[in-house]
Protein backbone atom coordinates (compact mmCIF):
# COMPACT_ATOMS: atom_id res chain seq x y z
CA UNK A 1 0.00 0.00 0.00
CA UNK A 2 2.93 2.27 -0.48
CA UNK A 3 2.30 5.38 -2.47
CA UNK A 4 5.19 7.41 -3.87
CA UNK A 5 5.18 9.67 -0.81
CA UNK A 6 5.35 6.91 1.77
CA UNK A 7 8.01 5.18 -0.30
CA UNK A 8 10.16 8.34 -0.39
CA UNK A 9 9.79 8.85 3.37
CA UNK A 10 10.85 5.25 3.90
CA UNK A 11 13.86 5.54 1.63
CA UNK A 12 14.99 8.98 2.85
CA UNK A 13 14.86 7.93 6.51
CA UNK A 14 16.79 4.80 5.53
CA UNK A 15 19.56 6.84 3.92
CA UNK A 16 19.59 9.22 6.88
CA UNK A 17 20.03 6.33 9.26
CA UNK A 18 22.76 4.55 7.29
CA UNK A 19 25.64 6.57 8.79
CA UNK A 20 23.88 6.72 12.17
CA UNK A 21 23.52 2.93 12.37
CA UNK A 22 27.11 2.34 11.32
CA UNK A 23 28.18 4.90 13.91
CA UNK A 24 26.04 3.21 16.57
CA UNK A 25 27.51 -0.22 15.82
CA UNK A 26 30.99 1.26 15.94
CA UNK A 27 30.27 2.93 19.27
CA UNK A 28 28.92 -0.33 20.66
CA UNK A 29 31.98 -2.28 19.57
CA UNK A 30 34.14 0.34 21.27
CA UNK A 31 32.00 0.73 24.39
CA UNK A 32 31.74 -2.96 25.30
CA UNK A 33 35.48 -3.33 25.60
CA UNK A 34 36.36 -3.89 29.24
CA UNK A 35 32.74 -4.43 30.24
CA UNK A 36 29.77 -2.10 30.49
CA UNK A 37 28.61 -0.05 33.42
CA UNK A 38 25.93 2.56 33.90
CA UNK A 39 28.48 5.03 35.22
CA UNK A 40 30.65 4.63 32.11
CA UNK A 41 27.71 5.15 29.76
CA UNK A 42 26.30 8.12 31.59
CA UNK A 43 29.73 9.58 32.06
CA UNK A 44 29.88 10.03 28.28
CA UNK A 45 26.29 10.89 27.48
CA UNK A 46 25.32 13.21 30.31
CA UNK A 47 25.12 16.81 29.21
CA UNK A 48 26.23 15.95 25.69
CA UNK A 49 24.61 18.00 22.95
CA UNK A 50 26.33 15.79 20.38
CA UNK A 51 24.84 12.51 21.62
CA UNK A 52 21.47 14.18 22.12
CA UNK A 53 21.48 15.32 18.48
CA UNK A 54 22.91 12.06 17.12
CA UNK A 55 20.41 9.83 18.85
CA UNK A 56 17.59 12.37 18.56
CA UNK A 57 17.83 12.28 14.79
CA UNK A 58 18.15 8.50 14.92
CA UNK A 59 14.97 8.14 17.01
CA UNK A 60 12.89 10.40 14.79
CA UNK A 61 14.08 8.68 11.63
CA UNK A 62 13.55 5.16 12.96
CA UNK A 63 10.07 6.03 14.25
CA UNK A 64 8.99 6.99 10.74
CA UNK A 65 10.87 4.15 9.07
CA UNK A 66 9.60 1.41 11.39
CA UNK A 67 6.03 2.73 11.28
CA UNK A 68 5.92 2.62 7.49
CA UNK A 69 7.64 -0.77 7.39
CA UNK A 70 5.25 -2.31 9.88
CA UNK A 71 2.32 -0.72 8.06
CA UNK A 72 3.30 -2.50 4.85
CA UNK A 73 3.69 -5.85 6.61
CA UNK A 74 0.38 -5.47 8.45
CA UNK A 75 -1.45 -4.71 5.22
CA UNK A 76 0.12 -7.54 3.24
CA UNK A 77 -0.33 -10.15 5.94
CA UNK A 78 -3.73 -9.22 7.39
CA UNK A 79 -5.29 -7.05 4.71
CA UNK A 80 -5.92 -4.24 7.21
CA UNK A 81 -6.50 -0.93 5.41
CA UNK A 82 -8.20 2.46 5.64
CA UNK A 83 -8.54 4.29 8.96
CA UNK A 84 -7.41 1.43 11.18
CA UNK A 85 -4.20 1.06 9.23
CA UNK A 86 -3.63 4.81 9.46
CA UNK A 87 -4.15 4.78 13.25
CA UNK A 88 -1.69 1.93 13.58
CA UNK A 89 0.90 3.75 11.48
CA UNK A 90 0.64 7.04 13.38
CA UNK A 91 0.43 5.21 16.70
CA UNK A 92 3.65 3.34 16.01
CA UNK A 93 5.47 6.45 14.84
CA UNK A 94 4.37 8.54 17.82
CA UNK A 95 4.88 5.74 20.32
CA UNK A 96 8.43 5.04 19.20
CA UNK A 97 9.39 8.71 19.04
CA UNK A 98 8.01 9.47 22.52
CA UNK A 99 9.65 6.43 24.10
CA UNK A 100 12.83 7.12 22.20
CA UNK A 101 13.13 10.81 23.08
CA UNK A 102 12.38 9.97 26.69
CA UNK A 103 15.21 7.45 26.65
CA UNK A 104 17.61 9.97 25.14
CA UNK A 105 16.68 12.66 27.63
CA UNK A 106 17.07 10.09 30.38
CA UNK A 107 20.74 9.61 29.56
CA UNK A 108 21.66 13.13 28.46
CA UNK A 109 19.98 16.00 30.21
CA UNK A 110 17.60 14.57 32.74
CA UNK A 111 19.57 11.89 34.56
CA UNK A 112 19.24 12.06 38.30
CA UNK A 113 22.65 10.68 39.00
CA UNK A 114 23.69 7.08 39.41
CA UNK A 115 26.01 5.04 41.64
Amino acid at each position, binding site marked *: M*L*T*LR*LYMLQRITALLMAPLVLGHIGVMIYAVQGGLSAAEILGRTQGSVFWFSFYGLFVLAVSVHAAIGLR*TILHEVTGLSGRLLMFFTWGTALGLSVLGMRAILAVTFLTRGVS
Partner: protein
Amino acid sequence: MNEVEKTRPVSVWRGEGEVGQFETYDVPAYDNQTVLDVVSHIQHYIDPSLSYRFACRVGMCGSCAMMVNGEPRWTCRTHVNKVAGQDVLEIAPLRILPVIKDLATNMDPFFDKWVKAEAVHHSSASRDEEMMVVLPDDAERKKADAGIECINCAVCYAACDTVAGNADYLGPAALQRAWTLYNDARDAGKQTILEAVSGAGGCHNCHAQGGCSHYCPNELNPMQAIAGLKQATTRAMLKGKL
Protein backbone atom coordinates in the same frame (compact mmCIF):
# COMPACT_ATOMS: atom_id res chain seq x y z
CA MET B 1 0.02 -59.27 -24.76
CA ASN B 2 1.84 -55.95 -25.07
CA GLU B 3 4.13 -54.75 -22.32
CA VAL B 4 2.29 -53.30 -19.33
CA GLU B 5 2.27 -49.54 -19.56
CA LYS B 6 3.95 -47.72 -16.74
CA THR B 7 1.64 -45.23 -15.08
CA ARG B 8 2.14 -42.41 -12.65
CA PRO B 9 -0.28 -40.75 -10.22
CA VAL B 10 -1.19 -37.17 -11.06
CA SER B 11 -3.02 -34.90 -8.64
CA VAL B 12 -5.23 -32.30 -10.36
CA TRP B 13 -7.32 -29.51 -8.84
CA ARG B 14 -11.00 -29.96 -9.62
CA GLY B 15 -13.76 -27.57 -8.63
CA GLU B 16 -15.68 -24.43 -9.38
CA GLY B 17 -14.90 -21.04 -7.97
CA GLU B 18 -13.47 -21.19 -4.48
CA VAL B 19 -14.70 -24.73 -3.76
CA GLY B 20 -12.63 -27.66 -4.87
CA GLN B 21 -10.16 -30.39 -4.03
CA PHE B 22 -7.31 -32.35 -5.56
CA GLU B 23 -8.24 -35.57 -7.39
CA THR B 24 -5.77 -38.23 -8.45
CA TYR B 25 -5.58 -39.87 -11.88
CA ASP B 26 -3.32 -42.63 -13.13
CA VAL B 27 -1.71 -41.44 -16.34
CA PRO B 28 0.58 -43.43 -18.69
CA ALA B 29 4.18 -42.44 -18.02
CA TYR B 30 6.48 -41.87 -20.97
CA ASP B 31 10.12 -40.85 -21.08
CA ASN B 32 9.24 -37.68 -22.97
CA GLN B 33 6.07 -36.11 -21.76
CA THR B 34 5.02 -32.58 -20.95
CA VAL B 35 2.59 -31.59 -18.22
CA LEU B 36 0.21 -30.41 -20.97
CA ASP B 37 0.36 -33.92 -22.47
CA VAL B 38 -0.70 -35.26 -19.08
CA VAL B 39 -3.59 -32.82 -18.67
CA SER B 40 -4.76 -33.49 -22.23
CA HIS B 41 -4.61 -37.26 -21.69
CA ILE B 42 -6.82 -36.97 -18.61
CA GLN B 43 -9.40 -34.88 -20.47
CA HIS B 44 -9.32 -37.08 -23.60
CA TYR B 45 -9.34 -40.55 -22.05
CA ILE B 46 -10.24 -40.43 -18.38
CA ASP B 47 -12.47 -37.48 -17.46
CA PRO B 48 -13.86 -35.30 -20.27
CA SER B 49 -15.26 -32.82 -17.74
CA LEU B 50 -11.77 -31.46 -16.93
CA SER B 51 -11.51 -27.78 -17.94
CA TYR B 52 -8.18 -26.29 -18.95
CA ARG B 53 -6.66 -23.80 -21.40
CA PHE B 54 -4.06 -24.22 -24.09
CA ALA B 55 -3.55 -22.98 -27.65
CA CYS B 56 -0.23 -23.20 -29.47
CA ARG B 57 1.24 -26.05 -27.33
CA VAL B 58 4.75 -24.96 -28.46
CA GLY B 59 5.69 -22.31 -25.90
CA MET B 60 4.62 -19.14 -27.68
CA CYS B 61 1.17 -18.12 -26.50
CA GLY B 62 1.29 -18.54 -22.73
CA SER B 63 -2.29 -19.90 -22.51
CA CYS B 64 -1.32 -23.12 -20.74
CA ALA B 65 0.18 -21.49 -17.64
CA MET B 66 -0.63 -23.44 -14.43
CA MET B 67 0.89 -24.20 -11.03
CA VAL B 68 3.01 -27.35 -11.36
CA ASN B 69 4.21 -28.74 -8.01
CA GLY B 70 3.68 -25.29 -6.55
CA GLU B 71 5.50 -23.32 -9.24
CA PRO B 72 3.93 -21.26 -12.06
CA ARG B 73 4.98 -22.65 -15.43
CA TRP B 74 3.94 -23.10 -19.06
CA THR B 75 2.75 -26.69 -19.01
CA CYS B 76 3.54 -27.26 -22.69
CA ARG B 77 7.20 -26.46 -21.97
CA THR B 78 7.48 -28.40 -18.73
CA HIS B 79 8.79 -31.94 -19.00
CA VAL B 80 7.26 -34.18 -16.37
CA ASN B 81 10.58 -35.87 -15.62
CA LYS B 82 12.24 -32.54 -14.92
CA VAL B 83 9.73 -31.46 -12.26
CA ALA B 84 8.35 -34.64 -10.74
CA GLY B 85 10.76 -37.53 -11.09
CA GLN B 86 9.42 -40.23 -8.78
CA ASP B 87 7.23 -37.81 -6.83
CA VAL B 88 3.57 -37.13 -7.41
CA LEU B 89 2.87 -34.54 -10.08
CA GLU B 90 0.54 -31.87 -8.71
CA ILE B 91 -1.29 -29.56 -11.14
CA ALA B 92 -3.36 -26.58 -10.02
CA PRO B 93 -4.73 -23.38 -11.56
CA LEU B 94 -2.53 -20.26 -11.46
CA ARG B 95 -2.32 -18.74 -7.99
CA ILE B 96 -4.03 -15.54 -6.94
CA LEU B 97 -6.35 -15.23 -9.96
CA PRO B 98 -9.98 -16.23 -9.29
CA VAL B 99 -10.70 -19.77 -10.45
CA ILE B 100 -13.50 -20.29 -12.96
CA LYS B 101 -13.37 -24.08 -13.11
CA ASP B 102 -10.66 -26.68 -12.55
CA LEU B 103 -7.47 -25.36 -14.19
CA ALA B 104 -8.98 -22.29 -15.87
CA THR B 105 -8.66 -18.95 -14.10
CA ASN B 106 -10.37 -15.62 -14.64
CA MET B 107 -7.72 -13.39 -16.21
CA ASP B 108 -9.77 -10.18 -15.87
CA PRO B 109 -7.93 -8.78 -12.82
CA PHE B 110 -4.63 -9.28 -14.63
CA PHE B 111 -5.75 -7.44 -17.77
CA ASP B 112 -7.60 -4.75 -15.82
CA LYS B 113 -4.39 -3.88 -14.01
CA TRP B 114 -2.57 -3.65 -17.32
CA VAL B 115 -4.94 -0.86 -18.32
CA LYS B 116 -4.87 0.71 -14.85
CA ALA B 117 -1.09 1.02 -15.08
CA GLU B 118 -1.59 3.12 -18.22
CA ALA B 119 0.42 0.45 -20.01
CA VAL B 120 -1.30 1.44 -23.21
CA HIS B 121 -0.04 3.50 -26.11
CA HIS B 122 -0.65 7.23 -25.81
CA SER B 123 -0.66 8.63 -29.32
CA SER B 124 1.61 11.52 -30.15
CA ALA B 125 0.93 11.77 -33.88
CA SER B 126 -1.49 10.77 -36.61
CA ARG B 127 -1.01 9.17 -40.02
CA ASP B 128 -0.75 12.64 -41.51
CA GLU B 129 2.54 13.37 -39.80
CA GLU B 130 6.03 12.11 -40.61
CA MET B 131 6.87 8.77 -39.02
CA MET B 132 9.21 9.16 -36.09
CA VAL B 133 12.60 7.53 -36.56
CA VAL B 134 13.40 5.22 -33.66
CA LEU B 135 16.83 3.61 -33.86
CA PRO B 136 17.14 0.10 -32.36
CA ASP B 137 20.39 0.87 -30.58
CA ASP B 138 19.02 4.00 -28.96
CA ALA B 139 19.49 3.66 -25.19
CA GLU B 140 15.83 4.25 -24.36
CA ARG B 141 14.71 1.91 -27.11
CA LYS B 142 16.90 -0.85 -25.67
CA LYS B 143 15.19 -0.43 -22.29
CA ALA B 144 11.81 -0.73 -23.96
CA ASP B 145 12.87 -3.72 -26.09
CA ALA B 146 13.90 -5.63 -22.97
CA GLY B 147 10.24 -5.99 -22.03
CA ILE B 148 8.16 -5.93 -25.19
CA GLU B 149 8.20 -9.70 -25.73
CA CYS B 150 5.82 -10.13 -22.80
CA ILE B 151 2.85 -12.23 -23.93
CA ASN B 152 0.83 -11.64 -20.77
CA CYS B 153 0.75 -15.22 -19.60
CA ALA B 154 0.46 -14.19 -15.90
CA VAL B 155 3.21 -16.53 -14.68
CA CYS B 156 5.02 -13.58 -13.06
CA TYR B 157 1.76 -12.38 -11.51
CA ALA B 158 1.15 -15.80 -9.97
CA ALA B 159 4.72 -15.97 -8.70
CA CYS B 160 4.57 -12.69 -6.79
CA ASP B 161 3.76 -12.69 -3.06
CA THR B 162 3.26 -8.93 -3.12
CA VAL B 163 0.44 -9.45 -5.61
CA ALA B 164 -0.95 -12.07 -3.25
CA GLY B 165 -0.81 -9.79 -0.21
CA ASN B 166 -1.81 -6.46 -1.77
CA ALA B 167 -5.02 -6.48 -3.81
CA ASP B 168 -4.23 -3.06 -5.29
CA TYR B 169 -0.75 -3.97 -6.49
CA LEU B 170 -0.63 -3.70 -10.29
CA GLY B 171 1.86 -6.54 -10.59
CA PRO B 172 5.04 -7.21 -12.56
CA ALA B 173 3.56 -7.65 -16.06
CA ALA B 174 1.50 -4.46 -16.02
CA LEU B 175 4.39 -2.45 -14.59
CA GLN B 176 6.90 -3.87 -17.04
CA ARG B 177 4.57 -3.00 -19.91
CA ALA B 178 4.16 0.52 -18.53
CA TRP B 179 7.96 0.81 -18.45
CA THR B 180 8.25 -0.24 -22.11
CA LEU B 181 5.84 2.54 -23.05
CA TYR B 182 7.54 5.06 -20.80
CA ASN B 183 10.68 4.40 -22.84
CA ASP B 184 8.86 4.51 -26.15
CA ALA B 185 9.84 7.69 -27.98
CA ARG B 186 6.47 7.73 -29.73
CA ASP B 187 4.43 7.65 -26.51
CA ALA B 188 3.03 11.01 -25.40
CA GLY B 189 1.80 9.85 -22.00
CA LYS B 190 4.96 9.67 -19.89
CA GLN B 191 3.55 11.83 -17.09
CA THR B 192 0.29 9.84 -17.15
CA ILE B 193 2.25 6.61 -16.80
CA LEU B 194 4.30 7.91 -13.87
CA GLU B 195 1.17 9.01 -12.07
CA ALA B 196 -0.56 5.69 -12.72
CA VAL B 197 2.32 3.72 -11.20
CA SER B 198 2.65 5.94 -8.12
CA GLY B 199 -0.64 5.18 -6.41
CA ALA B 200 -1.56 2.69 -3.70
CA GLY B 201 -0.98 -0.21 -6.08
CA GLY B 202 2.05 1.27 -7.79
CA CYS B 203 5.60 0.18 -8.44
CA HIS B 204 6.74 1.31 -4.98
CA ASN B 205 5.14 -1.74 -3.41
CA CYS B 206 7.62 -4.08 -5.09
CA HIS B 207 9.90 -5.74 -2.56
CA ALA B 208 12.30 -7.12 -5.18
CA GLN B 209 11.53 -10.71 -4.20
CA GLY B 210 12.45 -11.56 -7.78
CA GLY B 211 9.87 -14.29 -8.38
CA CYS B 212 8.78 -12.56 -11.56
CA SER B 213 12.21 -12.58 -13.21
CA HIS B 214 12.95 -16.02 -11.80
CA TYR B 215 9.89 -17.61 -13.41
CA CYS B 216 9.35 -15.62 -16.61
CA PRO B 217 9.36 -18.25 -19.38
CA ASN B 218 10.51 -15.63 -21.88
CA GLU B 219 13.42 -14.74 -19.58
CA LEU B 220 12.29 -11.14 -19.25
CA ASN B 221 13.14 -9.05 -16.20
CA PRO B 222 10.12 -7.29 -14.69
CA MET B 223 12.08 -6.62 -11.50
CA GLN B 224 14.51 -4.46 -13.48
CA ALA B 225 11.65 -2.66 -15.23
CA ILE B 226 10.03 -1.88 -11.88
CA ALA B 227 13.35 -0.58 -10.56
CA GLY B 228 13.42 1.69 -13.60
CA LEU B 229 9.96 2.99 -12.76
CA LYS B 230 11.03 3.64 -9.16
CA GLN B 231 13.97 5.66 -10.41
CA ALA B 232 11.86 7.62 -12.89
CA THR B 233 9.17 8.44 -10.33
CA THR B 234 11.76 9.42 -7.72
CA ARG B 235 13.47 11.77 -10.20
CA ALA B 236 10.12 13.27 -11.17
CA MET B 237 9.22 13.84 -7.52
CA LEU B 238 12.52 15.51 -6.76
CA LYS B 239 11.95 17.81 -9.73
CA GLY B 240 8.51 18.70 -8.41
CA LYS B 241 6.71 17.01 -11.28
CA LEU B 242 4.98 14.29 -9.27
